């Protein structure tokens, strides 16, 4: 069942069309990743999904009901983890969890029990009584996540929850998110980290300049790149004119080019050795040639002509 459904969401800030007709669904027991570079419209989309912003166009449905017909009930169903930390630094981790639990309608006793559970799950039990101001960035991120999970929401909206933290802390968060899905929660996860989307998400939507360009499972998106073979060439390409390299244009097309690196694709899924042979025969000195499996970045590259990491 669809826990979250957006229909043609759009939002404009002055001249800027931040979100343009974005539609997607998040189902029970799935992680839907919204992948895009900074400024793509991910946070604006999630802000409209949780009712922080009102959409200029389109609609949001939570568990089958229109969000704005019963906003408080909709919010009771969801837990939102904002991109920026939103914690009381003067309170301990436990006190923060209990406070947000009570705000979500839990009794003091329920909040205490649930806080202990979460502190264990997030590996913070030993430092539960310390002030949040003394926590590391990763610990703050985990408490920030925990605050949204206190009332056991069915739908969890995570807006780049691992941004700016070390790999170890990130792994702890990702592990916990996987556990949440096993319990049946539906998760909307925005990120600009390719690896997170590839390893974590069941379905991925690629968003850029406010538009949802494509969506699907990782393999569907990889297939979308086509059966092309991708080669990454390294060399000095600043003054080169590839069109002048004999039959290059007949066999390859340039996906991306810089002064020192060029990503080219061949049509079809023929023998990679054939492609390699043709590349080595080009009238240009190549320092290195790498055969590459299509990734999400390639999908993004194909759709936008830009690298997601730019």
């Amino acid at each position, binding site marked *: 069942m669809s826990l979250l459904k957006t229909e043609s969401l759009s939002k404009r800030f002055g001249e800027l069309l931040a979100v343009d007709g974005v539609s997607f669904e998040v189902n029970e027991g799935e992680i839907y990743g919204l992948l895009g570079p900074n400024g793509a419209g991910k946070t604006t989309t999630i802000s409209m999904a*949780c*009712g*922080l912003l009102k959409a200029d166009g389109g609609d949001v449905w939570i568990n089958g009901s229109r969000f704005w017909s019963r906003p*408080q*009930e909709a*919010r*009771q169903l969801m837990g*939102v983890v*904002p991109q*920026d*930390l*939103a*914690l*009381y*630094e*003067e*309170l301990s981790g436990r006190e923060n969890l209990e*406070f*947000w639990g*009570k*705000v*979500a*309608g839990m*009794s003091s006793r329920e909040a205490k029990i649930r806080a202990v559970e979460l502190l264990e799950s997030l590996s913070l039990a030993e430092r539960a009584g310390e002030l949040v101001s003394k926590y590391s960035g990763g610990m703050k991120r985990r408490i920030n996540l925990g*605050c949204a999970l206190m*009332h056991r929401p069915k739908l969890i909206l995570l807006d780049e929850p691992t941004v700016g933290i070390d790999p170890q802390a990130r792994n702890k968060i990702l592990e916990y998110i996987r556990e949440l899905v096993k319990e049946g929660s539906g998760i909307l996860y925005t990120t600009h980290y390719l690896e997170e989307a590839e390893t974590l998400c069941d379905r991925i939507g690629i968003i850029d300049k406010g538009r949802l360009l494509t969506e699907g499972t990782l393999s569907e998106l990889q297939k979308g790149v086509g059966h092309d073979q991708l080669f990454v060439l390294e060399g000095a390409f600043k003054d080169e004119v590839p069109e002048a390299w004999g039959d290059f244009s007949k066999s390859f097309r340039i996906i991306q080019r810089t002064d020192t690196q060029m990503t080219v694709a061949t049509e079809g899924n023929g023998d990679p050795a054939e492609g390699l042979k043709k590349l080595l025969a080009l009238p240009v000195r190549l320092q290195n040639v790498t055969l590459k499996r299509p990734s999400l970045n390639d999908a993004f590259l194909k759709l936008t002509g830009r690298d997601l990491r730019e």
Partner: protein
Amino acid sequence: MSRLFHIGLNDIRLVFRDKSSYFWLFAMPLAFAYFMSFTSRAPSEAENARPEIYVENLDTGFLSLLFLETLGQEGVRPVGEDRKEDAKRGITIPVDFTDSILSKKQSVFEAYKMEGIDDARSMLVEVSLFRAAVAFNGYLVEHATAYGADMPIVEEALKEVMLRDNPVRLEARFAGRKPIPVGMNQSLPGNLVTYLLLNLMVFGGASIANERRAGILRRLSISPIGRVELLGGKLFGLMLLACVQIAVFMILGQFAFGVNMGDQAPAIALLLLVFSWVGASSGLLIGFLIKSEEKVVGLSLMIALPMGAMGGDLLPVNRAI
């Protein structure tokens, strides 16, 4: 509804977790009250207690002297020519005052306003004058009742009547305590009111500004809590803070500084709570309108301190009568 209480209780917990709050809530206002109490202490107290009345006594009998004694009992100080300029009102006791009363005839004395004295001050002395006249008549009636209407009035007997406890006594005082409270009686309640307003505006406004900066307000707005509960919770927290400050000041005032709370301490507390509600609402309004904590503090100071000064909280604006 319980969410409202949780928001308020959390806010007050945050206030008291910050050690500097104790300074601004208690130490600073109490120190201010203590030092300000020196500025309004002695002169006005003496003057308030016994405003002067100029007496031109043409009578040489004992009844006029006893009448002047009665005037003194009513809280005015009869003065002669040497302090005539201090007097707020004057009376002339006729030459036949004693003789007329002894012969059971009416005696009329003249009361008048002194030059350059405003009506209000003169009026307050006239009240005492009127009360003295009524009291003096009462003594004469009591004397007649005790010794018989036909018996002549004897000075010693009348003095004895004047010293007796009245079977019925009407004790009328100015609302509050003295006409103008002075010393700690003025500075402690005055500073309480000023700092109550200031602290509620500062703590209310700054906490909102701080929560906005920390993203907590945004998070609260997407949590399952209604706007009314959120606003009510914030107001509740500030009202709790006000209750603590009011209670500490009233208890310390009464028991440590001997401030006279009068017979209406609960009514005073209620009035202060209503005042606190206004202060807390103003604090929240400022917090929602102004983003920077520093600006919130600056604006609160600019509002609360001039209001305290102009309203007579920091120093009494009334002049003693």
